[in-house]
C-alpha cells in the first residue's frame, strides 16, 4: 500500500483524435509499466469495436509506477474516460474518482466541443487541471494560439501548458513531473471505517463481475466480507488487485488507491455504479453521495431478420446487458416483424455499438426499427404516460397534448461553415441561445429537440462542415409541441417498424424524404408498389416504385440446370436478409437508411 502523499489519481480529457490514447500509451510505456515489445498500440482501448471506431466506451484504468526527479517513488492511477457524448455519464462518474485531469488539446486544431464538455465536468468535480498541448511535432502546431484559446474559451490559466508530442515522446517526462507536482494527492483516513466508491463494473467470462473501486477511507483486503450500502447485499472478496494494465493481485487497497475486486458477483446489474462499499461489520454509517444513474434516451426495436433466430437474439441481448447496465430491453411483438426486443440506449452511437456487436459477435442479422425518444403523452382524461414506441401511439382524438425532450447543444465551428450549421440547426427546429467567437471559430449554442438530433444530426453536421465542427449536448427537459405520428405504407399496408414521431410542420418534408429513400432501397418487384407517408388516414407523400422490367436468364441448356439452380438458391438465401410485408420484401438496411435525411 502506498501512502497518500505518493499517490496521484488523474484522468485525461480530450476531444476525439487529439491524442488521448497515444499519450496514455506513452506514459505507461516510458515508466516501464509495460515492456516496449508487449506494447499493443493504444492499450486502453480494448474492445474491437472501440478500436475500429477509434473511441473509448468503457472506462479503463491503469496504475503507473513512477520515480520522480525528487527521487521519490509515486503511484499514478490513470482512469481513461470515454470520448463520445453518448457516454458522457461515464465521464462524470470516472472523474469523481480522481483529483486531477490532463487537458489534452491538439495544438494543430485547438479547443473542440467535446474538450469543452469534458473539461467542464472536470471543473465540476473540483479537479486540478494541467493543460497539455499535443502534436507539437507537426508543422501546423501553433501552441501560443491554442494556449490563448484555452484561456479565452475555457478560462483556465494555460501559460504553463506542457508542450508534448505523444508521437515522439517529447514532453512526456515534463508531463509526468507535472502530474506529481501540480496535481494534489488524494485525501483519506486509513483508520476510518471502509468507504470505497464503486466506479465501474463489467462482466468477464472467466472472473465474473469485476468491480472497479476507489478507496476513500479505510482498507480493503482479500477474504473480507463487504456490503453494498445501497441494498445491503454482502459479498466475500475473492480477488483484489490493480491494473498495470494487466490484472495484478495486491494484499490490500488503502485510501486514495484505485483497483479492482471480484466477489462472486454474477451480474453487472447486481452492482450499482456510484454505490459505496463498506465492511459488513463495523462499516461506515453514511454512504458517499451517489451518481445519477444513466438513463436510456433513445429506443428502437431489434428484430431478427430470420424469425427463427429470436432465441439467439434473446441470448445475445441478455449477455450484452450483463456487461452494460445502461442498456435496457424488453420483449416486443410486431404484427409484421414478429418477436423482438424494444431496447433503450444512451444515444445513437451506443445503439450502433450494441447492434454491431449482436450482428458480429453473435452472427444474427437484425432489423432495427426507427429510433425514437421518450415522449410524454397527456391524455384528455387527465392521465399521462411515457411513449417509447410510436407503435403504441394512442388514438389522437384521446390525446390532450404531447411533450418532447429537448437538449442544449454546443457546436464549435470555423467561421466559413457557420451559415451551414445555423441552417442545419434551424431546419431541425433549433432555437439559437448563444453565438460567440473564439478566434476564427464560432461557438453556437442551440436548444434543439432530441429527436431531431438522435438520428443523423452528427453525420449531417460532419458533412456540412467537412468534419471541422465539433458537437456536444446535454439534456435540458421536456416541452410541449405539435407532434404527430407519421406512418409509412408500402403497397397500401402500414409498416409499423417505419413509423416515426414528427413535428407537424416538418411532416411533409420528412415524409417525402422517406418515401423517396424507400423507393431506392426497396428492390423492384414483379408489380408496381406505391409507397406512402400518412398522418392518421391522410396521405402526405407518395412515390411509386415501378415494376421490374426484365429478369430472365438468356441461356439455359442441359449443362446450365445445376448452376442456374444454385444461383437462384443463392438469391433465395439473399432474400432472407429481407422481411416480407404483405407481398413486398423490404431489405434489412432499409429500416435505418430510410430515416437518414440529406438536409
Amino acid at each position, binding site marked *: 500500500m502506498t501512502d497518500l502523499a505518493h499517490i496521484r489519481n488523474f484522468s485525461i480529457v480530450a476531444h476525439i483524435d487529439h491524442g488521448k490514447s497515444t499519450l496514455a500509451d506513452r506514459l505507461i510505456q516510458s515508466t516501464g509499466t509495460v515492456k516496449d515489445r508487449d506494447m499493443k498500440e493504444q492499450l486502453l482501448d480494448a474492445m474491437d469495436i472501440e478500436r475500429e471506431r477509434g473511441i473509448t466506451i468503457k472506462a479503463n484504468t491503469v496504475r503507473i509506477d513512477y520515480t520522480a526527479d525528487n527521487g521519490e517513488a509515486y503511484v499514478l492511477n490513470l482512469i481513461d474516460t470515454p470520448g463520445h457524448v453518448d457516454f458522457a455519464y461515464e465521464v462524470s462518474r470516472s472523474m469523481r474518482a480522481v483529483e486531477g485531469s490532463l487537458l489534452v488539446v491538439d495544438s494543430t486544431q485547438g479547443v473542440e466541443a467535446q474538450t469543452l464538455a469534458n473539461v467542464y465536468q472536470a471543473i465540476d468535480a473540483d479537479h486540478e487541471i494541467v493543460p497539455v498541448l499535443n502534436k507539437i511535432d507537426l508543422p501546423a502546431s501553433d501552441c501560443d494560439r491554442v494556449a490563448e484559446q484555452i484561456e479565452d474559451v475555457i478560462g483556465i490559466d494555460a501559460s504553463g501548458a506542457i508542450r508534448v508530442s505523444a508521437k515522439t515522446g517529447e514532453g512526456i517526462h515534463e508531463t509526468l513531473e507535472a502530474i506529481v507536482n501540480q496535481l494534489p494527492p488524494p485525501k483519506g483516513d486509513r483508520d476510518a471505517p471502509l468507504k470505497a466508491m464503486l466506479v465501474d463494473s463489467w462482466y468477464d467470462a472467466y472472473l465474473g463481475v469485476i468491480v472497479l473501486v476507489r478507496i476513500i477511507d479505510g482498507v480493503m483486503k482479500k477474504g473480507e466480507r463487504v456490503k453494498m450500502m445501497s441494498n445491503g447485499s454482502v459479498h466475500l472478496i475473492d480477488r483484489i488487485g490493480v491494473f498495470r494494465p494487466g490484472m495484478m493481485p495486491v494484499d490490500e487497497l488503502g485510501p486514495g488507491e484505485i483497483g479492482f475486486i471480484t466477489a462472486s458477483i454474477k451480474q453487472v446489474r447486481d452492482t450499482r455504479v456510484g454505490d459505496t462499499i463498506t465492511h459488513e461489520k463495523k462499516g461506515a454509517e453514511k454512504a458517499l453521495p451517489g451518481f445519477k444513474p444513466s438513463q436510456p434516451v433513445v429506443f428502437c426495436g431489434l428484430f431478427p431478420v430470420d424469425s427463427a433466430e429470436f432465441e439467439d437474439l434473446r441470448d445475445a441481448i441478455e449477455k450484452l446487458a450483463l456487461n452494460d447496465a445502461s442498456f435496457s430491453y424488453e420483449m416486443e411483438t410486431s404484427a409484421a416483424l414478429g418477436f423482438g426486443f424494444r431496447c433503450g440506449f444512451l444515444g445513437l452511437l451506443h445503439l450502433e455499438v450494441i447492434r454491431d456487436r449482436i450482428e458480429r459477435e453473435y452472427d444474427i442479422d437484425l432489423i432495427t426499427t426507427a429510433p425514437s425518444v421518450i415522449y410524454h403523452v397527456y391524455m384528455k382524461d387527465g392521465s399521462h404516460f411515457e411513449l417509447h414506441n410510436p407503435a403504441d401511439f394512442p388514438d389522437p382524438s384521446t390525446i390532450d397534448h404531447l411533450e418532447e425532450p429537448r437538449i442544449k447543444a454546443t457546436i464549435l465551428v470555423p467561421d466559413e461553415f457557420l451559415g451551414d450549421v445555423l441552417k442545419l440547426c434551424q431546419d431541425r427546429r433549433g432555437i439559437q441561445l448563444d453565438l460567440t467567437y473564439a478566434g476564427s471559430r464560432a461557438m453556437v449554442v442551440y436548444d434543439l429537440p432530441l429527436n431531431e438530433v438522435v438520428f443523423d444530426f452528427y453525420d449531417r453536421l460532419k458533412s456540412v462542415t467537412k468534419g471541422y465542427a465539433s458537437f456536444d449536448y446535454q439534456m435540458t427537459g421536456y416541452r410541449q409541441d405539435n407532434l404527430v405520428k407519421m406512418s409509412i405504407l408500402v403497397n397500401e399496408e402500414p409498416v409499423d417498424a417505419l413509423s416515426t414521431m414528427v413535428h407537424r410542420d416538418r411532416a411533409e418534408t420528412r415524409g417525402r424524404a422517406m418515401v423517396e429513400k424507400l423507393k431506392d432501397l426497396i428492390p423492384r418487384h414483379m408489380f408496381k408498389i406505391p409507397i406512402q407517408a400518412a398522418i392518421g388516414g391522410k396521405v402526405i407523400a407518395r412515390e411509386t416504385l415501378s415494376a421490374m422490367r426484365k429478369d*430472365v436468364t438468356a441461356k439455359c441448356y442441359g449443362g446450365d*440446370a445445376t448452376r442456374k*439452380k444454385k444461383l*437462384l438458391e443463392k438469391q433465395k438465401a439473399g432474400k432472407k436478409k429481407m422481411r416480407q410485408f404483405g407481398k413486398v420484401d423490404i431489405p434489412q438496411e432499409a429500416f435505418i437508411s430510410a430515416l437518414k435525411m440529406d438536409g
Partner: protein
Amino acid sequence: MAEDWTHGGFGIYIHWPFCASKCPYCDFNSHVAAEIDESRWVRAYTREIDRYAAALPARVVNSVFFGGGTPSLMAPETVNAVLERIHMRWPVANDLEVTLEANPGSVEAGRFRGYAQAGVNRLSMGIQALNDPDLRALGRLHSVDDALAAFDIARNNFDRVSFDLIYARQNQTLSDWRSELRRALAMTVDHLSLYQLTIEPGTAFGDRYDAGKLRGLPEDDLSAEMYEATQDICAAAGFEAYEVSNHAKSGSESRHNLIYWRYGDYAGIGPGAHGRITVHGQRYATETRLAPLAWLQAAEAGQGENLRRALSGTEQAEEYLMMGLRLLQGIDLKRYYSLSGDHLDTAKIAYLSEIGMVEHAGDSLHVTPGGRMVLNAVIKEFFAG
C-alpha cells in the same frame, strides 16, 4: 419409364472443348489447344458411349448434339465414328435429330459436306452479329461476309439450319437491333436463337465489367425494350419464341433442347458435360471432369464421370419447373406432382396469376409474355418458402 415425349425423351450430348480462340464473353468449357490427337478423342467418346449404353440399355435415342467449344473444328471422320458407335449401341428414332454447332469461318465451312455425310442433319451456326465492328468487339474471328458464305454452304448441305445472334451489345441502339433482326429474319431458314449478351463472371468481359471498363451496355429499360421488340418482330415474321431465346417455325424446334426443357434424360459426354439419366427408376445428375486432358484420360480408362448424384423428388420437381417454364407451352402440373409428391403451391399460382405473371388452364401452367420477362423472379417466388 415410358419412352415418350411426355417425359422428355432421350438425347446424347457430346462436348468438344476446343476453339480457335477464346471469345471474351464466353464462359463455356472451351480451350485453345495447339495440337489435338483426334484418334484419342474418338477412343474416349466411344468408351463413354459404351459405358452409358450398358447403363441405359434399349433407350431410343431421339437426338444427338455436338456442342462446344467449336465442334466444327472436328474432323468429319471423328463425328462419323461417334455417330456410328451410337447407332451400334442404341436403337435410334426414325426422325433422329443430329445437330452440330459450327463457327462460320471458311475453314469450318469446308467440312460441312463431310458432316452431312456422317449423318449430321441440322447445323447451328454462331453468327452472333451482322456487322463487322460488332463482330470484332465480340472477339469473333469471322466477318459478316465469311458468315454469309458459310451460311450458304450450310443451306446447300442441310435442310435444317439455325443460327445464333447476340444482342443488347455495347452501344447498340434499339433501332440498330430492329433493322439487324429484320435482316436476320430475311435469311432465316427454320430456326433462330437470339441471346441477350450476358456478362458472365470469370470471362474477359466479366473482368472488364467489374473494373468499370465495359461501357455502353444497355440499361435495364433498354434491354427490356429490346427483348419486347424481338418478340414482336419475330412473331410477326412467323417465328414465335417457343422458349425464352429460341424462335422457330412450328415443327422446327430444336428437339435436342426440348429434351432439356421438358426435363427428359440426356447423357452428357465430354469434358464438363452434365447429364440427367434414369437408372433403375432413380434419376441422377452426372458431371464430368472439366479439364480436357483429365477427362480424356479418365474416359479412356473407362470412367469419364466424376460425379453421379441421386436427385430427390423435390429437386427433380424444382428443376422441371425451372426448365419447363422457359417454354411457351409451360409445364404439366400432374408431372410436377408425380415428381415432387406435392402439388405446386396453389396459393402461389393464384397470386402469380392475379398479378399477371402466369396462366393456368387445367393441368398446364405457363408464363405470360410479361411473366417471361421476369421469369427468374417468378421461379424464385415458387421456390421461396
